[in-house]
């Protein structure tokens, strides 16, 4: 399928999904769908760097929180429509990703990973000590109750869901286009053997910087609507390690080398987590959720390194 046609199909699928979700009356399902889609965007964004080039980013929460806090700051200054805030979040996180990559990507991969861990803590400390955005107390964001979309008045949570769904479509379609482009082949050559790629004339540093910037920008975009969803943002929820763990676990469990892996991982793990919250399955608390994700991560990474996609390929023999 050509890229143009894929964009069309993806948009059509998105519209159908949105129309179906609009039929649901239960606010809880709308909110669950938002969370799952948010993880889908984060997992796809993480995979752009982690899956395609093989560089592990532990700082998803930092990029996500930058987008979220960008919204908090703008909310205090001027009123901007949400799509503009999403673009702004993407811009902030993209620039930070670029700077971060520029500082550390010339070193071995492990240093980059450790530096991303460091980035999350430094940013969290800065935000905690920054009173303008509420410091450690957090900030309240008032979301309007309703908004007009395509000539209809709809609830704001549904509008947030619409934005997140659009973002998910953009992220997935972008990931798929990249995977099949010159850029994607360059990324894959870095993942498979960076030295050989460099020796064959692949501009590895530039490609890695592109990947870090794109990946960071998408994470920031995913974070921008979050304050309106949660209505109260404090550093520990913005920088929650949940984001780091899930955005790594989902692509690894789904399968990292193709765009469909993070989707499978995010839909599966995200839905299980939401299901566990509703039914208190196994007395599920956030801690149990993390334990399950951590255990699945270790199991998959040791026993099924190609993830669910790899298992499917083996079963169907294709």
């Amino acid at each position: 399928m050509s890229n143009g046609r894929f964009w069309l199909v993806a948009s059509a699928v998105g519209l159908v999904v949105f129309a179906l979700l609009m039929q649901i009356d239960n606010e809880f399902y709308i909110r669950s769908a938002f969370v799952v889609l948010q993880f889908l965007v984060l997992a796809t964004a993480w995979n752009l760097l982690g899956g395609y080039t093989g560089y592990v980013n532990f700082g998803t929460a930092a990029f996500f929180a930058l987008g979220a806090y960008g919204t908090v700051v703008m909310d205090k200054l001027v009123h901007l429509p949400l799509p503009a805030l999403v673009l702004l979040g993407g811009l902030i996180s993209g620039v930070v990703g670029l700077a971060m990559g520029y500082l550390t990507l010339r070193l071995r991969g492990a240093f980059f990973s450790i530096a991303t861990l460091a980035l999350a803590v430094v940013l969290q400390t800065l935000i905690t000590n920054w009173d303008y955005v509420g410091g450690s107390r957090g900030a309240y964001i008032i979301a309007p109750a309703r908004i007009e979309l395509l000539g209809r008045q709809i609830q704001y949570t549904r509008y947030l869901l619409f934005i997140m769904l659009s973002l998910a479509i953009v992220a997935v379609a972008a990931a798929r286009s990249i995977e099949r482009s010159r850029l994607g082949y360059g990324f894959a050559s870095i993942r498979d053997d960076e030295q050989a790629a460099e020796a064959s004339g692949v501009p590895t540093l530039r490609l890695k910087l592109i990947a870090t910037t794109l990946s960071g920008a998408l994470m920031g975009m995913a974070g921008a609507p979050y304050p309106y969803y949660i209505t109260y943002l404090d550093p520990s929820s913005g920088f929650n390690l949940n984001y780091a763990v899930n955005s790594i676990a989902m692509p690894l469990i789904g399968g990292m080398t193709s765009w469909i892996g993070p989707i499978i991982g995010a839909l599966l793990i995200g839905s299980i987590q939401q299901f566990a919250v509703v039914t208190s399955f196994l007395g599920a608390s956030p801690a149990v959720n993390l334990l399950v994700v951590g255990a699945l991560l270790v199991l998959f990474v040791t026993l099924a390194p190609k993830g669910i996609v790899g298992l499917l390929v083996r079963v169907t023999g294709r």
Partner: protein
Amino acid sequence: MVLSLDLLLSAVVAGILLGGFYAAMTVGVSMSFGMLDIVNIAHPAFIILGSYIAYILNARFGLDPVLASILAAPAFYALGALVYQTYYVAFERRGDEALRGLAFFFGLLFITEVALILIFGVDYRFVETRYVGITVHLGPIDLPLRMLVPFLSSLALVGGLQLFLARTFIGRAIMAVSQDRLALQLMAANPARIKRIAFALSIASAGIAGALLILIQPVEPSIGRDFIGRVFAICVLGGMGSFPGMLVAALLLGIVESVTATFYGPSWAPAVAFGCLLLTLALRPSGILGRRA
């Protein structure tokens, strides 16, 4: 603000004591990351596990935490050997360790942390010993035994490991595997076995560091994460595999952190370590006493 000399002096002394303790936390990372090239980001989780083992032995049997951790060290050694064996079979042997190995240790970090939360809850735990409340006064300087005992134990641990590496056959083999794996293999030694011993030792040192940690401050499961940045910052700053470099870096970071906490408030302290790490990686990735680029 008037810069009080006494205040500065006590902040520096407190920093030296703190830094000495950081050396005990980092020595294992210097072995696993610095020498063996195994990016064990779960190291702090094993430290916290050590804290809880010391806590249980102390609460049940009234054992001194340091003594308890030495008794528990063989168990940690065995755990380390098991973790390395899994890592070796699943990743290293396939040459697949860069990405998946990292994810593996990341998963271990969370499993350990959440398991501790489920068993013990998120309450802070601490230990009771006779000397915890005592402070030695030397002129204007206060030396609380709560800090001094971990400081001295830590120096003993680092010194002991340094002697082991420099003087014994196995120790030299560990140094050799860190320098040239292939050459060691040609000498008919098995690199995987040597690395297993070294990694197991690094986890045993984490257990001991955990007991020292719970002497210094109350412990709850998720504080381990705060130390990831510190231990890796010290390891990199000290030039990866070098113990003397690591010790200097640990003391330096302890002092900077303590002075920052004294003059700007403790909420800034975590950023110091990570800031140092980012700066080191950006400017001088070979560390302050490092040789390799």
